[in-house]
């Protein structure tokens, strides 16, 4: 049995989510090959050779792979898929985008957001915004999985896998990357942070998120938000934690001015410790919080920031 994991990277470096995907692959057992498809991606390829549990790194350098366009990436993966029993990627925006294309071209079902591996063909995944867990067995020849990164510990960086160049697939002409606009932040990445401070509608406006920024800076935390805060334009979309945003499972999650709708809980209820600060004593968030403080956030957050000195 051998497994192909498709790495996520920005050409210069490997994305952390790849380490979780490799960890899931090693749980299944067998040879784990890691594919780096990029353009001038020697940095990412060098990172990939160090990932623990990887037996070989497949490297493709072509302009077509510069921006992870799914048409190109899927065609490449399908061209390489023949010997593999499993094809795995992290369930990030990139993984969710190209993997179903791979599955369809292989005429296999895809199993999305796998949170546990029961056997080589049996997997657990959440449905209904995390309100139920389904155990499913695949009868397909190739198991195509995306794995929820927060459900698997990251693979170590103590490996030394050989690098092998593989040929590029023919480029797809009908999709073209135009440009991108990334949110700049010096804070840790939301999905990988140890501590997350999130704000909801109760923040009232974007300016007030400065209160959370100050607290986050003190804690070395990432800042997240509920959909209400994103929709109201307080913070950019990529801050959103929930069923349709990012799934996080940090050591500490501090929910500020967030009521705790089903869709938000889906994105954070696997956090180790949950703190809720909300002036509404009846807010549903208190039903999942380990520590709840029923208080006005405009008093409590600055006080908390100060108390951490």
């Amino acid at each position, binding site marked *: 049995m051998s497994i192909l994991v498709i790495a996520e990277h920005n050409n210069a470096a490997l994305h952390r989510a790849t380490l979780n995907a490799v960890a899931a692959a090693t749980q299944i057992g067998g040879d784990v090959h890691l594919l780096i498809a990029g353009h001038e991606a020697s940095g990412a390829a060098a990172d990939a050779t160090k990932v623990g549990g990887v037996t070989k790194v497949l490297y493709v350098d072509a302009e077509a792979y510069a921006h992870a366009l799914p048409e190109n990436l899927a065609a490449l993966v399908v061209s390489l898929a023949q010997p593999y029993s499993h094809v795995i990627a992290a369930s990030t925006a990139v993984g969710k985008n190209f993997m179903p294309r791979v599955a369809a071209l292989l*005429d296999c079902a895809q199993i999305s957001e796998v949170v546990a591996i029961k056997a080589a063909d049996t997997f657990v995944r959440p*449905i209904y915004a995390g309100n139920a867990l389904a155990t499913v067995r695949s009868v397909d020849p190739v198991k195509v999985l995306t794995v929820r990164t927060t459900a698997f510990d990251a693979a170590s960086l103590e490996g030394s896998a050989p690098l092998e160049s593989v040929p590029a697939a023919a480029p797809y002409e009908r999709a073209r990357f135009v440009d991108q606009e990334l949110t700049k932040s010096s804070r840790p990445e939301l999905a990988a942070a140890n501590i997350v401070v999130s704000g909801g509608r109760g923040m009232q406006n974007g300016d007030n998120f400065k209160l959370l920024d100050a607290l986050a800076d003190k804690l070395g935390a990432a800042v997240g938000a509920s959909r209400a805060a994103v929709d109201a334009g307080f913070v950019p979309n990529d801050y959103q934690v929930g069923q349709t945003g990012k799934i996080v499972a940090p050591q500490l999650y501090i929910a500020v001015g967030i009521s705790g709708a089903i869709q938000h809980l889906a994105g954070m209820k696997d956090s180790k410790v949950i703190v809720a600060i909300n002036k509404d004593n009846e807010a549903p968030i208190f039903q999942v919080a380990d520590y709840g403080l029923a208080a006005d956030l405009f008093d409590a957050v600055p006080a908390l920031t100060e108390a951490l000195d």
Partner: protein
Amino acid sequence: MFADYGYFSNRLSCECIRNPTLKILVPVKRVVDYNVKVRVKADGSGVDISNVKMSMNPFDEIAVEEAVRQKETGVATEVIAVSCGISQCQETLRTAMAIGADRGILIETAVELEPLAVAKLLKALVDKERPQLIILGKQAIDDDSNQTGQMLAALAGMPQATFASRVTLEGSTAVVSREVDGGAETLSLTLPAVVTTDLRLNEPRYVTLPNIMKAKKKSLEIIKPDDLGVDVTPRLKIMKFVEPTTRSAGIKVPDVKTLVEKLKIEAKAL
């Protein structure tokens, strides 16, 4: 085994340049209403959805709204809503037509459809109807798969733009902004193409009573998977369903000082 994926076929795109009509196909799914908290059946055989409120998947509402807006601005000429599933999906199609879709198609089956099966059904319908754009929701809030649009694009050999927050049609091109981890990116696709909607794309309109009445008179065609020559047999065997381990409520602390102490000493989280 991996022979022809239709990847390099320009046939459809040439046709659409000559064709003055721009048809949009919008697949819609009937799901448990997003406000309902479902329960797993005691025997683990499934999720209890009897007697709960069903609605159109929220992402699909956004897809219908987007298609109708493209028609209202004169870019698109026809909007076709399609749903795959049991007879009651007709209600979902009527809702789509009340928002403004011109006609509906139900691909009726009692089989529990997986995304791959839906994608194959839609591919067969795309071959028949030849839409230049297919707009789907990015995921259904019941199975949370986030697969169907991408699978359809693959099977039809079309380009895709998932998680769209803005769609601009210009001649034979769709310029789409999409939500990615860390920000946004813009793609340019040659039609025909597949787009899946993010929540940010638009705010769906409320359906009015006159429009609901009008929708009742619109055409609703019913076909079967067999008519399309598609095998919809599931590929995944559901072994069991369980409730996730529930978190119980912790304690309420009276003030910030106690909170910091608890986090430091009891939870060791700071």
